[in-house]
């Protein structure tokens, strides 16, 4: 005490000086906090809400799948805002989601219609970003759409959480820093399917590919071809078919006398329904070639699409990202919530869309900000569990999720109208991982000039 007096400084003086000093010291961080706040597009700092953009096919051939995606998004919004039973918020690990919105802000949404056309999807995403002020865009049911919207989002500095897209290109040569894919890809389908094909059909087979003539079809054909040739299969021919061909008879008939004993249909949606139904009509599954039963393989299966093929789907092998019959806690919680809300099980598209929304919200909470580069850094390399498909990694290098892959077969004896796919095998994640450099591409910068 006396020393203070001696130095000419009173206790009160010291406290004042300390307070002023502390204030001065804190001033830079006070102003730096949210310093990026004004620098990113659609910053919701001054709003009590954060708006997400759900860009799904609401018209066109994938409208039913789009409707299911939208149902999942609306459920995710409910759960994030603390309504309903919470669904996967209760099973996701690790999770900072509390059911009180995201970073204390209520989650709202705008919707767009991709029409499953790249130009329409870009236009609706742009409208949601520029007019509705969405902070994140998600959804879609086509790789062409995903690649187009992802590229737009990179330009706009808006994070894109892809919906259903299976082309290797989405997180390969066309990957973007602002784009993330939870869905599996063609390479993973090939890697998961090959051992089952080997077990069921053997290593001495001759395959004929019919392939949808666009990015997804090309990469799937390449991946399945590589996987089956590694088994020892011979590829007899690969034929590109126009998207939406309708009648595939002129492409199927050459298969009959090609010497092939397996037909691989790299088709999705309506093309898959038509080509598979017609291949069965042409008696391919009743044929014997090279002393073996002729087989048909559909590498990418969807329950919604399987409905359209009717009995033709029975016994056909393929892969799927997720199925409502899974019995892990996350899947059960999601199916319970979705079923109670809508009276039907979610599709794999709905699952991926729901998970993507939660992952984005959680990354914002982890980052403590909506500032996209910080959110991106949280998603990159994020390990999580409890969302179906076991422990999952969002790989930092290409923004591709790695998780277990389901090999399924069209159910021969379904117990209900939804029981169309039977899980034959769950391929462990380690078996479908690959070196990210094989597909090329550059992620691009974190910071985007506007």
């Amino acid at each position, binding site marked *: 005490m006396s020393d203070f007096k001696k130095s000419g400084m009173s206790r009160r003086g010291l406290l004042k000086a300390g307070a002023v000093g502390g204030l001065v010291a804190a001033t830079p961080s006070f102003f730096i906090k949210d310093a990026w706040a004004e620098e990113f597009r659609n910053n919701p700092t001054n709003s009590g809400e954060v708006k997400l953009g759900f860009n799904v096919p609401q018209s*066109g*051939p*994938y*409208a*039913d799948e789009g409707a299911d995606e939208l149902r999942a998004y609306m459920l995710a919004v409910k759960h994030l805002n603390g309504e309903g039973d919470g669904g996967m918020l209760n099973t996701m690990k690790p999770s900072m989601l509390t059911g009180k919105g995201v970073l204390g802000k209520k989650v709202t949404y705008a919707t767009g219609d991709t029409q499953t056309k790249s130009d329409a999807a870009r236009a609706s995403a742009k409208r949601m970003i520029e007019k509705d002020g969405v902070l994140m865009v998600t959804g879609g049911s086509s790789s062409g759409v995903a690649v187009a919207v992802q590229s737009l989002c990179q330009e706009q500095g808006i994070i894109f959480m892809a919906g259903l897209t299976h082309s290797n290109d989405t997180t390969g040569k066309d990957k973007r820093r602002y784009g993330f894919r939870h869905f599996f890809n063609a390479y993973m389908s090939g890697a998961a399917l090959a051992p089952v094909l080997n077990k069921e059909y053997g290593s001495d087979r001759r395959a004929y590919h019919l392939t949808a003539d666009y990015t997804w079809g090309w990469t799937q054909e390449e991946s399945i071809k590589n996987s089956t040739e590694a088994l020892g299969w011979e590829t007899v*021919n690969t*034929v590109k078919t*126009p998207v*939406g061909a*309708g*009648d595939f*008879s*002129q*492409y199927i*008939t*050459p298969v*009959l*006398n090609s010497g092939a004993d397996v037909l691989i249909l790299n088709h999705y949606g*309506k093309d898959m*329904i*038509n080509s598979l*139904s*017609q291949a069965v*009509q*042409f*008696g391919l599954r*009743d044929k014997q070639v090279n002393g073996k039963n002729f087989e048909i393989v559909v590498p990418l299966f969807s329950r*919604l*699409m399987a*409905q*359209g*093929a*009717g*009995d*033709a789907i029975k016994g056909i092998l393929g892969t799927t990202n997720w199925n409502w019959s899974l019995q892990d806690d996350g899947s059960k919680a999601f*199916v*319970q919530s*979705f*079923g*109670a809300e*809508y*009276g*039907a*099980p979610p599709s794999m598209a709905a699952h991926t869309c729901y998970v993507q929304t939660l992952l984005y919200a959680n990354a914002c909470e982890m980052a403590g900000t909506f500032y996209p580069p910080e959110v991106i850094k949280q998603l990159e390399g994020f390990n999580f569990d409890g969302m179906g498909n076991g422990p999952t990694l969002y790989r930092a290098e290409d923004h591709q999720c790695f998780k277990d892959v389901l090999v399924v077969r069209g159910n021969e004896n*379904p*117990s*209900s*109208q*939804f*029981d169309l796919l039977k899980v034959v095998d769950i391929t462990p994640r380690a078996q479908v991982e690959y070196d990210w450099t094989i597909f090329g591409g550059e992620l691009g910068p974190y910071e985007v000039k506007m």
Partner: protein
Amino acid sequence: MDAIFIQILNGLDKGAAYALIALGLTLVFGTLGIVNFAHGALFMLGAFCAVTFQKIITISVKVRDEGVTAFVAYKEQPYLETWFGDTGRIIIDYSVPLSIILAIPLMLLVGYVMERGLIKHFYKRPHAEQILVTFGLAIVIQEIIKAYFGANPIPQAAPEILAGSANVGSWVGLGDNLVYPWWRLIYLCFSGIVIFAVFAFLQFTTYGMVVRAGMRDRETVGLLGINIERRFTVVFAIAAIVAGVAGVMYTPILPPDYHLGMEFLVLSFVVVVVGGMGSLGGAVLAGFLLGIVQSFASMNEVKDIFPGIDQIILYLVAVVILLVLPRGLMGRAGVMDD
């Protein structure tokens, strides 16, 4: 040789669908002078008659899957099977051909209402306006169907006995490996019968004779005291029936969805133009011709030489034919020459 034979069959089969739709289009154009872009929607409506008929006859008791608690999952047991056993099963199995019974009166009604309610107001309007209004109508019809039946295709099975393939190779001495689906062969025969019936109706009945006379000179026929407009309304309804039954029978080949009509519409117009506007024979000839050309262009051997030729061949052939024969294959002078 095998490949050529099969592609001819494919082409005939595809051409049969084109020809049936183009026949109705030409009939309407030749009689009423209407360019009806809603004609594809009538084909699609016919297909959904099959879907509706199947839904009606498979009304079921629902046996719930108790293992699923999150939502109501069930297996269906059609009442028809429960009540009538094998007879019920046979009726369900033959639902596609049987649905023609529903399609004929329904399409007759649709055609009549469409012509009296909308089309007749556009008889004297420019073709551009006719196209706009009928195209709009087609979109309305397909959106209604989508709202009720969803966007996904709905599978329709051919009767079990006809679900497999016929050994057509052995029929023509080309070996046992050449097979072709029974239902497609039936569709080919069916289209032949329908085309013959339409021609016979126009050629060998008094009613048809009056219609043909009206197609040539409406005013003179009217001056003879014949209400030609009423007859043309019936012709419109017949065209709707032809499109409808063609749609019904096509469902096992292509599971129908709301967009089915649009997929055929553009190609059918190409067929009509190539055949010659207003020429029934031309429409049928061009339908089969273009179907065969399209099938051959899709052969791997052809595509190896001309990549992508299968996508443009129809339009290429149409351009060549119209350059050589500006009125189409069997077009008459004075029809749309202006």
